[in-house]
Structures are given as C-alpha cells and as structure tokens.
C-alpha cells in the first residue's frame, strides 16, 4: 500500500486568507496616505501648536498693580492674561499688543511650549501655569523633570512641593486670586531665592 501524495493545489487558498485585488489596492492606498501624512507632519513641524484668537488685545499701558487688581476678582484667567502676567513677571511690564506677539515672545524664551495649542480666550489651566512659572523661575527639578524634561504634570508637582502653588489637578482652571498669589510667590522667589509662607514672611 502506498501513500498517495498529491501536490498542493496552487489555486487553493483558505477562505479567510483570500483577499481580492481591489481590497489590497485600497489597503495599500490607505497606507500610502498615512505615510505621506506623517511625513508631511514631520517635515512641516508637527510640534508647532495652533494659535487661536491671535489678534486679541488687552488693556493698553496697564502696570502690574492694575493688572493684578483686575485679575484678582475674575473667576478664570484667560491664556492671554496669563501670558501678560508672565511677561510682567520677567520684564516688569508688557508692551506687546496682541496675543500672538505674547505667544511668540514666550516661545522664544522657552516659557511656552512649542507644542501647545493656545487660545487667547480659553482659561489657563493649573498645569500650564505651573509649566510657565517653572520655566520662568528656572527652578531645579526632581528626578522626573530631569529625566523627561518639563511637563505640565510634573511642573505642577514641583511647584506644589515648593509651596508656590496650592493643591489641585493640572487640568483645572486657575482662579484670578490664585493667579495673583502664584505670581506673587514666584516674584518673591525670583528676587530673593525664598518662597514666602502664607503670611508673606520668608519660609525658614
């Protein structure tokens, strides 16, 4: 008795493996589009965030005392106001006119991340404020900040640890009074190297 061995039928393919040529073509086209999109994004700079309401202006010739007074009674702080506050923290005054100018200025100083999508009318979050304060004050970070670089989450953690910011999650908006308090504490730290306590006295 001999075993009959027959060559495999070259035309045979399992049903689940059978792919029509049209489907294959569509699949290849999709992959090609995906690769092209990613390539364009990389080439064009996918890290460049969008700027919304870039021509929004603020009160002109406002010194920091008037600015903080105005902000203190607001329930939220817009990103436009927040960036004005950071510029005042760094330079003492803000002579820039539009939101785009402030964004560009702070990006050039690494205060605002290049990847951020910013909107002049949107409330600034605690994480974003912490990031900007961390960069502006040139704070030394911990292990995670050293390994991964600044991020909203860990910058917030660092500022909370140092007593510059209070409790709360990174995604929550900042109130006006909180913004004034954080800016004040950061200002004192940048000038004296010490973080003030709740009474405004240097912490021992």
């Amino acid at each position: 008795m001999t075993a009959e061995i027959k060559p495999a039928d070259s035309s045979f393919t399992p049903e689940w493996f059978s792919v029509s040529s049209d489907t294959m073509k569509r699949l290849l086209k999709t992959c090609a589009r995906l690769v092209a999109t990613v390539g364009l994004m990389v080439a064009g700079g996918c890290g460049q965030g969008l700027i919304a309401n870039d021509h929004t202006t603020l009160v002109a010739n406002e010194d920091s005392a008037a600015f903080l007074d105005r902000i203190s009674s607001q329930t939220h702080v817009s990103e436009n106001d927040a960036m004005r506050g950071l510029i005042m923290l760094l330079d003492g005054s803000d002579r820039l006119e539009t939101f785009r100018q402030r964004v560009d200025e702070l990006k050039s100083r690494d205060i605002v991340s290049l990847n951020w999508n910013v909107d002049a009318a949107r409330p600034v979050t605690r994480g974003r404020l912490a990031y900007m304060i961390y960069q502006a004050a040139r704070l030394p970070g911990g292990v995670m900040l050293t390994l991964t670089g600044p991020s909203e989450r860990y910058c917030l953690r660092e500022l909370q640890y140092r007593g510059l910011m209070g409790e709360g999650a990174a995604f929550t908006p900042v109130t006006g009074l909180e913004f004034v308090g954080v800016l004040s504490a950061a200002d004192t730290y940048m000038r004296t190297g010490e973080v003030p306590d709740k009474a405004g006295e240097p912490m021992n």
Partner: protein
Amino acid sequence: MRHAIELVVVGILTVAVAQAADDPAEPQSAANSSRAASTKTNSNAAGADAQPAPAVEGLPPASGATPLTATVVSVEGPASYIVTTEEAGEWQPLKTGDELSELTVIRTGLGAKVVLELSDRGEITIRNATKVGIASFRQDAGRQVTTRLGLKYGSIHAEVDSTQGPNDFKVRTPVATLSVGGTGGGIGFSYRGLGLSGSHGSWQVTTPSGNTNVGAGQSTDENATPSGNLANAARNPRMGDPFGGLTQEEIDNLLLNGGGRGIFGFVGNGYANTMLFMPGMYTNYSPPSGGSSGDNGDGGNGGGDGDGGDDGGEIVNPPGNGERVIFNDFVSPGEGQ
C-alpha cells in the same frame, strides 16, 4: 427772693449741661472739605489740633476723635492709591511723602514694596501684589489711636508701637479679623487662605472656626489652627495627599462619574494613618460666596485654598458698631456697580 435765685441757678446749670451734650458733628459740606484737605496735611496730629473729628460717611460722629494720616516713607516698584471718598476718584501713582487719609486704598504690583508710617504708632510694610485699604485711622481724646485696615489680597507686615499711647489696631481679611495691642507680625491673605506670623508681642485672631492667640514666633491660619499643629504639618514630608491633591469638586466628580474611585486615598500627610478616606474628610475650608471656581481645602492641614470672593470682598465678621468695612463698598473705576 431766695426761690428766684434758686430757679436762676438751676436754669443756668441746665443750659450748661445741654451745651455740653450737644452733638459736635459739623455739617456735611464742611466735613467733605476737611476730608479733602486732610490728604495733604501733616500726619502728626497727636497732641496738635484737638478739633473734633468731622462726621465721616458711614461712621457715627466720633466725639473728640481726630482723623490722622499715614505718611508714605518709601515706595519701590509699581504702586498706586485711590481715595474712595472722592466722586471722580482715580488711581494715582504712590510717591514718597504722600499723606494718606482714611478710606484710601493702596495696591502694589510685582516687585513692589511700600512702607507707611502710622503717625507715631508704628509702621506698615505693604509687600508685592497686595491690595489694602485704610478704613479708619484716628485718635481719640484719650490718645488711643484706632486703626482699621482691610486686606483684600497679598501680605503686609505690621509693627505696632504702643510706647507713645494705646492702640486699637485691627486688620480685616475676607476670612478673619486680627487685632493687636502692641506687637508686630506678618499678615497675608491669598487663594491659600489666611496666614499670620507673629514676630513679637501677641495677636488675637477671630475666625468663623474660632479664636486663637498668636505669640512671637507662632503662626496660624484662617481656621485658627494652633501654631503647634501647623508646625507639625510643615515638618512632616508631604509625600502625597489624600485623593492626589484633588479638590472637593473633583472628588465629588470621581464619586459620581468615576466608578467610586473618589473614596480611596493613600497615606501621605502627617495626619493620615488609615487607608480609607471619605470625601470631605480633609476639606475644612469653603471659599466665601462668589468664588465659584476656588479650590477647597488641602490634605488635612489647617491651611486651605479658596477664592477670596469677588470684588465685594465678603467679610466674615460683621463690622462692629460704627466701623466701616471698606471693601464692601469699594469698586474699582471702570468696573461699575
């Protein structure tokens, strides 16, 4: 004849008593002009003109009380003031040598510091990013000087000197009233709440949570937390917070929408030893009305976060008889009422 003489004597005495009991308040127009002029007069009124104080709007006539002015000793950085009694009041840059009367509000910007001399009764240092008002500053016939300050936000350092005479010195914040006899210390109010740090002498703090006395080297917060408890909390490392530093709103959101995850916390602060926390366990501060986006409490310590309210500046302790709380009426120009 004898009866007639007695009647005349009684009549004379009656007239004399009636004159002594007359109200010393001057007409309103005279009060306005004297108030406007007081911003530029010499602040050292102690022992000088003993004219009765004019009636100030909102305050009862103060018999024998002389309004004083605070002198600006030094100004650093951006600082301005406004006299709220003037109808067309505008913020003016603050300069060294300015004389500030009652119902004047001072605000400072970043990098600023202002030193005010309170006649011969002490000194106030207004730090950066601060808004404070002089609600009352006057001396009575007995040489006691009554000072009422309203701290809207920021911090000041007060040095009160009682060697020249008695002082009734109080500072009001949106959450507490602090009073002192003859002492010094730092007072701050921000989104994190009240902070009082005594440098010497003693302070009395009145809050909705209770009263406490703060001595030299001690501190307290808006909950009148004893200084020792605050020191313990500061000593223990804050490895974390129950609920990961979430606010009460976020905890509630997790409870409602997060599958109940808001229930569990973790051991992290100096107080907690249990592994199971209930929401609100460590939230012991609620912001005054108007601070809808303010954060509540923190991880079990006496301090708390909170929005100090809107521009109305809710004062927890109602003003005493005749005392005017300046920030309840103060509105910045342009904001409207």
